[in-house]
């Protein structure tokens, strides 16, 4: 296979694996401080304890997400160097914001985790809010890349005698009409997917008697709000794409993916409402988790596939992917093949480890006098 084929497969594979984990990281980074704040305000200790439990998952998932972020960067640089340069050059400020967000999120996440019961509650909440802000900054920056390849506003694209050039212009990339709906949609769909999953988990721990019903009341409210907002911002986003990125819009409309996405979003909303039915919480949450995740991935995949054969869409045409692929040499196929095989094996190992750690032999909290001698 050529660099182009491997480049497309590799980046799709890595992106979608990464996307799942960062969605959970973002969702948990928002949910956890909400649980803690709500628990402290209403003096409901179980919410605080539940936040703590969720943080232990967040730490583990974040490490995996971080590794896959590196995968993505290296694959981009290896197979799509020109595209990566365009992103880092013309989108220098938003990408820098994302990097600062990663730094803030990681530092505050570590502090947040290690300082349970060791800090004043209000100070701990502030650290949690930093974690939330840091996590929100990451899609705030990274969405600019997707907004730009859908509609390169804020980027000057010049074609001279068959040569293409991407240069920054004086327009701010933050004013790209596709950008803000994309950011808001990303924030809320991530929160919706995560809160559905957390509701399933909450229902399990409530059944076991570890927590009271209070945690479900909070998580289903968040699920409903985020599902409503996801649907609203998805509609706005589609509308902006229709106005500014006709090629993508036409392609998505042609294969009914827009309609399917909208139906899935409505199903997600109905399931979120269904969480308020006392007897149906568990099945609604379970199906909602699958439906919301499926919606998020389906919409994302369709948006990306719809650009093909272009990698950057400009109105009704664009820059072909073949122009952006690394032409320097044929990257040996063994490299991406081994990468994907390793990924699959390690993902299975990772899931098995999670199973051992949380289900087979649940990790007990260390006693205060830890055995470190």
């Amino acid at each position: 296979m050529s660099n182009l084929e491997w480049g497309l497969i590799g980046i799709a594979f890595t992106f979608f694996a990464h996307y799942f984990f960062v969605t959970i990281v973002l969702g948990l980074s928002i949910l956890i401080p909400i649980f803690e704040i709500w628990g402290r305000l209403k003096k409901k200790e179980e919410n605080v304890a539940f936040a703590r439990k969720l943080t232990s998952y967040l730490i583990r998932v974040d490490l995996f997400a971080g590794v896959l972020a590196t995968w993505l960067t290296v694959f981009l640089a290896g197979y799509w160097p020109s595209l990566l340069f365009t992103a880092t050059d013309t989108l220098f400020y938003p990408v820098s914001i994302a990097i600062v967000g990663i730094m803030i999120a990681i530092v505050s996440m570590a502090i947040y985790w290690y300082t349970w019961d060791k800090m004043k509650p209000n100070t701990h909440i502030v650290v949690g809010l930093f974690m939330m802000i840091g996590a929100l900054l990451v899609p705030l920056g990274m969405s600019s890349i997707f907004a730009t390849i859908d509609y390169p506003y804020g980027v000057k694209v010049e074609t001279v005698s068959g040569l293409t050039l991407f240069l920054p212009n004086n327009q701010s990339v933050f004013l790209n009409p596709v950008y803000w709906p994309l950011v808001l949609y990303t924030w809320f769909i991530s929160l919706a997917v995560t809160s559905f999953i957390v509701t399933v988990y909450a229902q399990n721990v409530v059944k076991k008697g570890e927590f009271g019903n209070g945690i479900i009341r909070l998580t289903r409210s968040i699920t409903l709000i985020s599902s409503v907002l996801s649907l609203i911002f998805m509609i706005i986003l589609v509308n902006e794409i229709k106005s500014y990125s006709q090629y993508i819009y036409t392609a998505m409309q042609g294969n009914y993916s827009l309609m399917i996405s909208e139906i899935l979003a409505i199903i997600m909303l109905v399931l979120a409402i269904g969480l308020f039915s006392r007897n149906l919480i568990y099945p609604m949450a379970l199906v909602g988790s699958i439906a919301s995740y499926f919606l998020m991935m389906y919409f994302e995949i369709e948006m990306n596939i719809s650009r093909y054969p272009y990698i950057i869409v400009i109105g009704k045409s664009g820059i072909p992917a073949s122009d952006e692929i690394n032409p320097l040499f044929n990257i040996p196929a063994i490299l991406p093949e081994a990468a994907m095989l390793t990924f699959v094996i390690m993902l299975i190992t990772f899931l098995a480890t999670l199973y051992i750690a949380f289900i087979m032999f649940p990790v007990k909290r260390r006693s205060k006098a830890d055995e470190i001698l």
Partner: protein
Amino acid sequence: MLDPTVFFNLLPMNKIPLDLSSAWKNANLAEYMTILGIYVHAVFLVFAVGFPILVLALEAIGTIKKDNDYIKLAKNASKIWGISFAAGAVTGTLVEFGLVVVWSGSIALIASMAAAPLIIELYAFIIEIVLIGTYLTTFDVLKNHRIIHMLIGFGVLFGSNLSAYMILAVNAWMQVPWGTGNFVGQNILPWVPTMGPDVVNSKSLGILATALSNYGSVVLASPNAFQLLAPFTTDPWIAIVSPEAIITYIHNLLAAVIDSSFIAASYVSYKILKGYGKYEYNLKALKVTFGAGAIASILQPIAGDQQGRLLYEFQRNIFYATEGIGPNGGYNPILSFLLYGNFNHYFRGFNYLESLPGSNNPYAQMTIQASMTYEPWLHFFYYTMVILGVVLFILAIAYFGLYIKLIDRLVKAIFRRSTERFLIYGSFIGAFSGVVASISGWAAREMGRHPWTIYGLVTYPEVITPHPITIWFTIMIMLIELAILFAGLWGFYMIYLKNLKKNTEVVE
């Protein structure tokens, strides 16, 4: 096939060539955050690379001797992985982001000679992170299957070392661009010999050097720029198999083992001196940790010597600066003996390099000038490393006083203490010497390459982002880097020091 001349003439940037002064300003500011970022990364990296050997050694001894103390020590030591790997992965990701965002021209390097090592590093990275989790999680679960558990530990060792090798291979290619044949020697730095087989297209190298030096990294904003450089190489694996990569890896691996072993040994010594825990238990830990550091300290001069020989062969200007040879050259009997087997070799110095045919090009002049400017610092850092290496070597020999009577008697005679007591105090000196030697050695390596990002091919301002790097941006990033460092160190403190006294009371 595109014609480079046509391409450059069409570039709008052609009208505005690279503003060297602002590019240098940008590069100089960005350098501060990059230096700090890499050192912060290294703090955690040292444990990620050095500790697997210690942990596995402890677990293996415990399994063979059926001594539960060693198993417990292995478990406690492995707890550091949680923080060191997390912080190492985070800082590594940030260094990588920094590379592609701030030093955006380096994307050309990643897309070419660094592609293979960096893609392989991805496997290593994921193997390492997943197996660390599995190793920690299954420590007690697999207590009746220690061999299987150790195999998981070997997976961690393999992952961390493969990762280190690949990253260092890229750094080594930036020092000695192996596979470029005579290109650098013939066109830019006349004192540079052939750098390996001629597998990199010299026409592409010429275009790359011209494009970046004239227009800066912004030239890469055109996908056509990459097309101009094709085909770039016939051997994408070359960076992995260069002699510089192999020696750099061994030298750095040994440094990581020395640092992490002596830091662990000093922690154990601290416990002994403060009376935390049982003496016999702590002594077992001291023997293994100090022993690992001692073996690495004995091997390190061999690796260091090989590294020095490569420096002499391929980066003569840096060699002169680190050895303080000076412009007019001079005699250095020790160096002469090591390199030529006699004491009389005359080392010619910078003036000789300047007199070589072809040295009148601005890059050769700039390189010699930079080496002369940095010479006092390079000499200082280099010899700090060497002197501390000697201190470590002495400590390493003393360690064998535990097993060899003659050395034991010597230690007692010279230091007026038993070997055991000497090792307790010596571990602090070892930790200090190892860390300072590592910092100094890396400083000499990176500072010596000035003004080059890739020696003889691409300079710093040519790969810096065209966006202005402000002082405030630099300060903000550096503050966040420091926050990551302190968060990690605080994590170490929380795990290993905070509850020490309390634990002792519980145990006793």
